């Protein structure tokens, strides 16, 4: 349990660093480290497939996409952030921490939930047989993403000769 809490704290710290770093590259990398922590937390929660996906896709693929974008916009992409926002951040963070803790503590005994038995079947069966509709929707989302990228990066010359 202690290890789990440490991992969660690491996740929070690296997410916080991701927004505090001025250098975008460092920010993207600490986001990747945060994903790594999240992936390990998933493993320890008995969700190995989600963990693998989190580490390979979010920490891997999405970070690569981020770094690509940062590289493409490097030249004049520096933006002066507001100083105040970063200084005030710890204050707000601690405030929210306290509120969050109080809310969660007061809700602790109040959420009723149905008793649940152990789950039957394997992961593959659940994914294919219970959540089949999600797979259709996933195909839709992937189409939408691919077509969106195609539309946003289409060549200008084509517009003229049509």
């Amino acid at each position, binding site marked *: 349990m202690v290890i789990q809490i440490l991992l969660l704290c690491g996740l929070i710290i690296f997410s916080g660093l991701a927004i505090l770093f001025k250098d975008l590259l460092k920010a993207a990398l600490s986001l990747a480290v945060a994903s790594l922590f999240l992936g390990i937390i998933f493993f320890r929660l008995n969700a190995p497939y989600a963990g693998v996906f989190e580490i390979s896709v979010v920490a891997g693929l999405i970070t690569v996409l981020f770094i690509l974008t940062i590289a493409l916009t490097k030249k004049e992409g520096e933006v002066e952030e507001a100083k105040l926002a970063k200084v005030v951040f710890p204050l707000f963070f601690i405030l929210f921490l306290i509120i969050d803790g109080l809310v969660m503590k007061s809700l602790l005994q109040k959420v009723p*939930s*149905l008793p649940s038995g152990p789950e039957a079947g394997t992961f593959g069966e659940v994914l294919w*047989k219970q959540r089949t*509709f999600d797979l*259709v*929707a996933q195909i*839709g989302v992937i*189409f939408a993403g691919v077509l*969106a990228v195609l539309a946003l990066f289409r060549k200008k010359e084509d517009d003229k000769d*049509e």
Partner: protein
Amino acid sequence: MVFSFIVIPLLVAAFLPIIGKFSKKLVPDVLTNAALAFLLFNSILLVKPIFNQGTIVQNVNWFGEKVNLQVALDGFNLFMLFTISLVSLCISLFSIDYLEHYGHKANFYALLLVMIAGMNGLVLVPDLFSIYLFLEVAAVASYALVAFGLGYDELEASFKYLMLSVVASAFALLGITILFGMTGSLSFQAVAQGLQDLNARYVVGVCVAFFIMGFGLKAALVPFHAWLPDAHPSAPAPISAMLSGLLIKVSGVYALFRIIYSVIGMTPVLSQVLMALGTISMVVAALLALGQKDVKRMLAYSSISQVGYIVLGLALGTPLGIAGGLFHLFNHAVAKGLLFLNSGSIQHITGTRNLDELGGLGKRVPITAGTNLVGALSIAGVPPLAGFWSKLIIVIALIQAKQFGYALVAILASILTLWYYLLIQRKAFFGKISEKWLHIKEAPFWMSAANVILALICIFVGIFFTPVFKTWISPAAEALAKGIQQVLMWGI
């Protein structure tokens, strides 16, 4: 076959980019319109079974093995499906001519079809997480479509829209996660049953707050409306019509009220909160619309205001109120679709959307002016057009439920609506024509055709109000008014 509403648009969208390599215009045009016409036909075919049976639940078997591809259709879903098919067919007809100067038609149509597939899926699935997913399908396609012109405004509006809407769907998903945690399942039926057994009012209240934040932002209710007046006017005209006419209603209003009525169950407190939200959006957006110079921005604010009416009617909770809200949803989808397409025609004809520059177009472009007048009067609620009846029903329902204050505000807001629509008419179509517009021509055939079809629907529904109301709106309202019982009866 109910499943075709999701599969056909996706299949056509998958092939369109490849076909687009060989045929840049003709084949994509024909294919898209044929697919959408087929869906419209299909949804009309389903009217009779729904009218007789009440609900249809279909399962698909994948090579003889049982998989969970299940769609559930009742009056409410069918009503939404029909609205989506009808308006999107007109929009794609309009795009035939309008998209000429954007180019890349195949890509545009593919995105449009993915968006329609997303909306159809959202309407059909009886499962909370799938609702979120299809909402995301439609949303990702809509970000790209808003930015389709690749101009400065388009990109900016699309980015803002994306940021806000990602946060919105995160909140909606959190609400879904909490319900999942309490009941251990995600299908409407099981969650509704579980919540009945649990009687957990406070936690459900938290979930509803998340849903109102998430779906309310998608529907652009007033505290969450900031993205809409940017995103809707910046998009190409057919997409504005799509977003304002359909997407905010499907991914905002439909999702919110489907979950509230069929899963969580309506309570008096919730009803009051939603009615207050609806009224605030109705009034604030109508006031904001008055000051706009850009035709499309004015229409966008008007959309927020009219969504307020729909929410007010649906949140009232009496069968008549729900029927009025749904009827107004349909009328607004048709009329606002018409007005946005029409603003596209105006832009195509004159090259500007600024009301101060326009004037006296009426004599030169009678079809555009006439259809615009019909749409505007229908939304503003002038008899005998369709919008009049739906607003009348909402007001009567409010009076029946003894909510006189809301009824009064609804009537006053309707007068405000009439005022700013007459403003458009006066500035754009009447008055003296300026020298600049002496040589303008009427919009191309398909653009005018789409406008005329939608205008005819406005008039037709207004005149044949009683049969339309009986066959279309009442079953939908009944399905919703039955609330949780309706879902528990599905017998899945």
